[in-house]
């Protein structure tokens, strides 16, 4: 997508908060504390962006491995951020920011940079469709890996007894070593990211 088209598209779709298109073409988001962040523009060696959801069991089951990856690669200059699916479709539920804060605490994510992907703008930009789905972005801002964290899931409902392919770690190792990522794109298994606009559309039928 050309930058000008993206800007136009964003103006149409995005709400007051969320994505802004900086003049360098970076995705900027506002995290839970109100800070503006650019997870797709690493300030260090690389960054990893995880698309997650508070209520997806596959995404939740990966919380410990996500923490381990960030712990292992943090010292090597890799920044981690969590992008939570916008699932504020229940008027009765607690505000989503609050749900996410609870989730961060319960799943050991305290200290992580976390944002809510209002109107799915980050997911659209990154072509993320699943939670959990991982992205590795190199120093130049190029997405070098998009896909599963590892091959624990052989299918939905079928987990391997042993993980035999640590795809995200392999991608990070390759990027940090300045090499080629062996498999830059893998199929992530988990829950589908839903377009909240689709649900809203039917509200007024």
């Amino acid at each position: 997508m050309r930058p000008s088209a993206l800007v136009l598209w964003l103006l149409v779709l995005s709400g007051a908060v969320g994505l802004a298109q900086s003049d360098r073409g970076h995705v900027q988001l506002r995290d839970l504390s109100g800070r503006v962040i650019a997870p797709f523009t690493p300030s260090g060696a690389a960054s990893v962006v995880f698309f997650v959801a508070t209520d997806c069991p596959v995404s939740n089951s990966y919380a410990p491995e996500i923490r381990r990856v960030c712990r292992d690669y943090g010292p090597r200059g890799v920044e981690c951020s969590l992008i939570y699916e916008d699932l504020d479709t229940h008027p009765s539920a607690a505000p989503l920011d609050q749900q996410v804060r609870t989730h961060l605490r319960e799943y050991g994510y305290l200290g992580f940079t976390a944002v809510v992907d209002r109107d799915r703008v980050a997911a659209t930009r990154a072509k993320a469709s699943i939670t959990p789905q991982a992205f590795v972005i190199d120093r130049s801002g190029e997405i070098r890996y998009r896909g599963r964290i590892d091959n624990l899931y052989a299918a939905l409902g079928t987990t391997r007894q042993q993980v035999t392919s640590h795809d995200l770690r392999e991608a990070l190792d390759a990027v940090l070593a300045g090499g080629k990522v062996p498999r830059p794109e893998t199929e992530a298994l988990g829950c589908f990211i839903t377009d909240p606009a689709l649900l809203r559309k039917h509200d007024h039928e």
Partner: protein
Amino acid sequence: MSRRRLLFLALACAVVLTPLIGQSQSSRTPSARRAAPDARITFAETIAPIVYANCVTCHRPGEAAPFPLISYEDVARRGTLIAKVTESRYMPPWHAEPGFGEFVGERRLTDAQIATIAAWVTQGMPRGDETRMPKLPEFPADGWRLGQPDLILEMPIAFDVPASGPDVFRNFVIPTKLAEDKWVRGIEFRPIARKVVHHALFAQVPGGSRANVDGVDGRPGFGGLSAVGFMDRTDPGLGGWVPGAQPTMFTEGIVSRLPKGSDFLLQVHFHPSGKREFEKSLIGIYFAENGGQKDLASVLLPAVFGLGAGIDIPPGEKQFTIKDSFTLPGDAKVYNALAHAHYLAKQMKAEATLPDGSTRPLLWIRDWDFNWQDGYSYKNPFILPKGTRIDVTLTYDNSSDNPRNPSSPPRRAIFGEQSLDEMGTIGFEVEIVNKAEVDAFHAALASRNKMATDTASKNGTLGRLLARGLRRNMQQLTVFDRQGNVVTRLGEVGSYSQAAFSPDGSRIAVVKNDPDTDGRDIWTFDIATGKSTAITSDAPPDSAPIWSPDGTQIAYVSDREKTNAIYRRAANGSGAEELVYTHTSGAQIILTDWSADGRFLCFWAGETMFVLPLAGERKPIELGRERGGRFSPDVRLLAFNSNQSGPFQVYVKDLAESTRQPTPGGPAVQSTQVSNGPSVGGIFWRRDGKELFYLSIQGGQGMMAVDVLGEAPFRTGEPKLLFKLPTPVLAPAQLSNVSSPDGQRFVFAVNVAARKPAQ
């Protein structure tokens, strides 16, 4: 070869499921793929009825499923996912193929329903006219769904389920404290941490019989797949639980015995969710008036979970097949089917050929999933006449293409109880219809079991299992100093437990297992010379050697004719044994001390600790829910383990006050906590009463020492770790004299490194 050695195999019992609430939708939803393009599929009119009838039992708040599927938003948000998992038939979870038996509580969508869901998603998930929504099924409020149970059991301590890692199989021992035998007609299971409890199996075992493994690793219960049920069992089991199953009474007329003093064994399969959880299940048990009139039998094909079926699967083998047949020696009414195997099994199929040549499909699991061990109750139990042949075929995939393969790269898998081993059976719970055929029926089943054992003996399966068991359980008596340095090792490597110093510190008494006969006898070892002496050498298993205060006698527990009793005999092995006391509650007794003045023994049985005066009529005095009692050298105090306020801790209380007849409403006996963390017995008073030892279980077993600062009131210093044991010892709660009288030497039967298996 002892049969008892074989009784370790998991028995997945039949889970009885009730029909799901709601009506079948199969008649009103035509295949959307074949429907005209303008046909409107809406949530309100088409999708909600399917979801309400098949999904909301679990997909509602407070239930096992991870998200609710009640409102339009709930379902539409997960629309793509629902289309995908219904298409793959991962959801709703049901593993029996249609056409092979009709079962109670089938959770299965028709092809047409699946196509309708897919079409709805493709069409943008229209909401429709919500005034035409079906009513949400009514679910009973929280509480016991089968009514107030006759007996409520609760896990004594919550189990801490880790956030991540492999699935956890944990067995919890819950004393029933039944004063008489009961008959069970139904069980309702209420897990707390529903997001992580994947399934549960129930069994009963003799009271206290799992005390040697319960809590050994410092957490409630014990690990492993193999604890529930026994393969030579002939009575119907106690069943199990899977998410989504509504609690129900057993099939009418089927009851199961729960003997007096027995322990309820709960095996729970936990599936870590990414978040730490705590589980403290409740079990409601419903009793029947009597034992029922039906003659029931469990028919397993192959027998003994495949022990003699030659299960030896080479790595890479994609289609390893075993077959078994059984011709019914009498008319049998079939109620339930169950299937059990480990991770490599793929297909499990059973079919009956009747004497007239006609066939009847019984069960077909096309893609076996260890995680969904449903039992299958036939909707209409049916009679298979005498002479009917049942054929079972099981196939296994030990290639790397099988994502469930626990080994990467694949390894040879032989029959066994470990998760890397395999087994397999399809079982049927049947009623033997004609009284005249009952004996022949049971004889035929017994002969099948014997044939399986004989075959396993001939083809080396038993030898391999036995050799592996030995390698796993080898210990050596090892004496340590206060820093944990090894001072000496005694005797040969073997199978030992419950090592105890003599009161003068010169000898060690220990329980020695003979793996060939499964016999257990008491032996002594002289520390200076290493000479060993058998104190008992009888058939009944003996345990808990306790030295008399003068070192001339040893008391021990012996398991005879299903009661257990305390005996004593001379510590040099000479002379006859003397019966000291017989315990009649049915619970296994564990003897832990003989007081320095020679007047009292201390033991526990089930969950209750007793002091037994040796004078007079030897009537035990009940002390309460405690264990591992140890008298102070002046016999004024009693140190013991109790878990009344959380994990087991060491306490000390006044002996005279504790053994006095309690006055109703009188003050409770005060006890002083000695330990500062979870502990499991191994309590020992130094002879001068100035120091107390115990085993802590924080980060492995550790020998702790506490200074006794005063007796009235009783005061102690801060517990100090002397040393960590190199490997956890078996049955730590049953230890007695872990130390020499001066508190300078400690003895344990510690594991020696397992040797490489000889393949």
